């Protein structure tokens, strides 16, 4: 995936918030507002909201687990493409490949379905996960927004 941080983008978003569950809705709302100008279809909007919600929830319940940390969302629009990055500085993921296996979860006690990464993959065009134990996790996603014409 292109490094959108160093790209000449039309519009950028930087959002930082506490890893509290009530902020999940806030993250979706801000992301929706950010892409509203691209005139996305209802389906595209739902796709982006779901993917962001999954990544933010992961940061809150896995990244920071029992403590409160900062979740960062960076997003950018370049022509008709949306780039979005959700990052935390939490515990990190030991085995990213295993974490991405559908239905795999480390929190069955919380009734996690293990479908988070599957949904991100299904609803976005590209997904990249970088993680280091003790360093945190960074999820980058890209999606073309065709818009309702």
């Amino acid at each position, binding site marked *: 995936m292109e490094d959108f941080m160093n790209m000449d983008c039309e519009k950028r978003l930087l959002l930082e918030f506490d890893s509290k*569950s*009530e902020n*999940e*809705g806030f993250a*979706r709302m801000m992301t929706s507002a950010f892409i509203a100008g691209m005139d996305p279809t*209802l*389906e595209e909007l*739902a796709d982006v*909201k*779901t993917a962001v*919600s*999954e990544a933010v*929830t992961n940061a*809150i*319940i896995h990244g920071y687990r029992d403590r409160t940390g900062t979740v960062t969302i960076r997003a950018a629009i370049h022509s008709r493409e949306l780039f979005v990055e959700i990052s935390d500085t939490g515990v990190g993921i030991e085995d990213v490949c295993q974490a991405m296996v559908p239905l795999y979860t480390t929190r069955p006690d*919380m*009734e*996690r*379905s*293990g*479908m*988070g990464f*599957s*949904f991100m993959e*299904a609803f976005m065009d590209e997904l990249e996960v970088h993680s280091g134990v003790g360093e945190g996790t960074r999820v980058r996603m890209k999606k073309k927004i065709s818009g309702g014409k």
Partner: protein
Amino acid sequence: MKKVEYRKEDAGASFTQEGNVLVISLKEDLDHHNAMYIRERADRMLEREAIRHVVFDFTGVDFMDSSGIGVIMGRYKQVIFSGGKAAVCGIGAAVDRIFKLSGIYKIIEKYDTAGDAVQALGGRR
């Protein structure tokens, strides 16, 4: 029909018992935040009341992520042991896509309205 009072933090959904069917009417996006309260609330009712089936009514709610799959599957696993069923109703396009992708329709039935679901499951309305 028994209407149950709920506290402010339970505003994500309201809970009604109709015969032996628990109807959980969602009021807000079904994400991890609301799923925690719904799970807690539903389990308290499943413990105390003579409930056999559970219906999740999504009327007016158009967002759900994988946390919703978790909370529905969790209740399904509880009622299935006593021969109960879980159902969903009032499903809009966005929520329907999540359900289809998750494969949950293989074990959980979809109805148009809560009334249809309650009737089909043998409760009264």
